[in-house]
């Protein structure tokens, strides 16, 4: 009669010589199972704290970005609490959607296939595959005049998805600021895109030329005109990805239609 009590079975396996093939397999599986359990438990239990930390860090980056722009921080402070206006934009129509930003759940929109649009291959220069139909955009107005638009952009970089904020001045063509909020590029190379020194190269650059063609790129070496930004040595692919992010999100599948709407309003 075979013994089926697991405890006795376990003891019997432990009593086997260490060289036995069965014990080797059992120990390997037992160690992997215990380690997997510990790692999963730690990651699941700690993820709410980490999410909160990440959200706080992104909020701080947004604040830091607003402070880099001369005049804007004062303008927001002068306008009071709702100086920074948030609008949920429907990218399909290019019109603001009638959704309260306070109740807008971006994670849910990104997760639901119904609220995402597949990007056709040749258009998908950012490598994203699909894009959410609804995204929050921040606006700063002075009276009736639009002073600043902050667009969330994202792109698949060299080894991570890069997310950033691109702030445009009221003419909707001059970069006011660029701020990376999330990236996992190579430390010391691609990851340098989030250094203030590199982000400081962006303000004042032009997105499109007079014909409306989007020209902003990240070049190797030194920038020579208003459409170029110095590349980071050893991070060509990350730089190209950031340039592609601008190309894509300013284009027809990104915020292009919405920016047209804003221009139509007479800014």
């Amino acid at each position: 009669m075979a013994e089926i009590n697991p405890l006795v079975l376990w003891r019997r396996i432990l009593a086997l010589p260490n060289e036995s093939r069965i014990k080797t397999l059992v120990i390997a599986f037992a160690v992997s199972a215990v380690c997997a359990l510990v790692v999963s438990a730690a990651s699941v239990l700690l993820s709410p704290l980490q999410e909160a930390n990440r959200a706080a860090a992104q909020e701080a980056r947004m604040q830091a970005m607003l402070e880099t722009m001369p005049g804007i921080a004062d303008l927001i402070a002068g306008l009071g609490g709702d100086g920074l206006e948030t609008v949920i934009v429907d990218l399909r129509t290019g019109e603001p959607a009638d959704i309260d930003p306070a109740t807008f759940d971006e994670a849910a929109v990104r997760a639901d296939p119904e609220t995402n649009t597949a990007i056709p291959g040749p258009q998908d220069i950012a490598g994203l595959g699909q894009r959410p139909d609804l995204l929050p955009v921040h606006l700063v107005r002075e009276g009736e005049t639009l002073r600043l638009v902050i667009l969330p952009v994202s792109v698949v970089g060299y080894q991570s998805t890069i997310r950033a904020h691109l702030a445009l001045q009221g003419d909707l063509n001059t970069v006011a600021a660029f701020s990376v909020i999330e990236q996992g590029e190579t430390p010391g190379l691609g990851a340098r895109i989030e250094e203030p020194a590199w982000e400081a190269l962006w303000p004042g650059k032009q997105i499109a030329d007079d014909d409306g063609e989007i020209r902003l790129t990240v070049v190797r070496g030194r920038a020579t005109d208003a459409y170029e930004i110095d590349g980071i040595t050893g991070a060509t692919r990350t730089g190209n990805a950031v340039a592609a992010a601008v190309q894509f999100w300013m284009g027809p599948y990104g915020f292009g239609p919405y920016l047209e709407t804003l221009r139509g309003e007479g800014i």
Partner: protein
Amino acid sequence: MRQALRHLYGPIIDNNPVTLQILGICSALAVTTSLSTALVMCAALTAVLVSGNIMISAIRAHIPTTIRLIVQITIIASLVIVTDQIIQAFAFEMSERLSIFVGLIVTNCLVLGRAEAFAMHNPVVPSALDGLGNGLGYSLILVIVGSIRELFGAGTLLGFTILPTIYGGGWFVPLNLMMLAPSAFFILGLLIWTIRSIRPVQVEPADFEISIQPDRRAP
């Protein structure tokens, strides 16, 4: 008891893992630009070393020789991931500054070295003490290197200004070299020189003797 305590204080000076065995140099270079990052790295490494030694020592009788290294590295890697997650949850800003170097504790020869050389052959308590001693020995060197680099590279210690720099209106010109990795090599080299001058026992015999022939003339 004395024997047990030797496991603890032996690796701090006499058998220091960094200055005698020259292990864990990579992280010693990377995280010592400031004292606070060095301290967090030391705490993380010591925690991994002690808990790894305890676990491996506890199951040492049942680890098959054929897969012992992979079992050890699995346990160590899991502990490192847990440590990394804890730092990300409770010290987020620090985790951003340490970036990948907490994760790279897995590849620190010190951890696997102690598991293989000590924890595999000794009971749990001496293994824990050995882990703690080696962790403290590593920490001692990192704290010294980190203090020197932060003090002379930025004029601060733990963020508090000690030497007012010229950028802040003081008199001290920061040594930019101290912020770069080579400076850690110089400091480590000087430390090793000092320790070996005081304790000549640690000096290794030369691999080759340079022969001097008095009658040989230059061609």
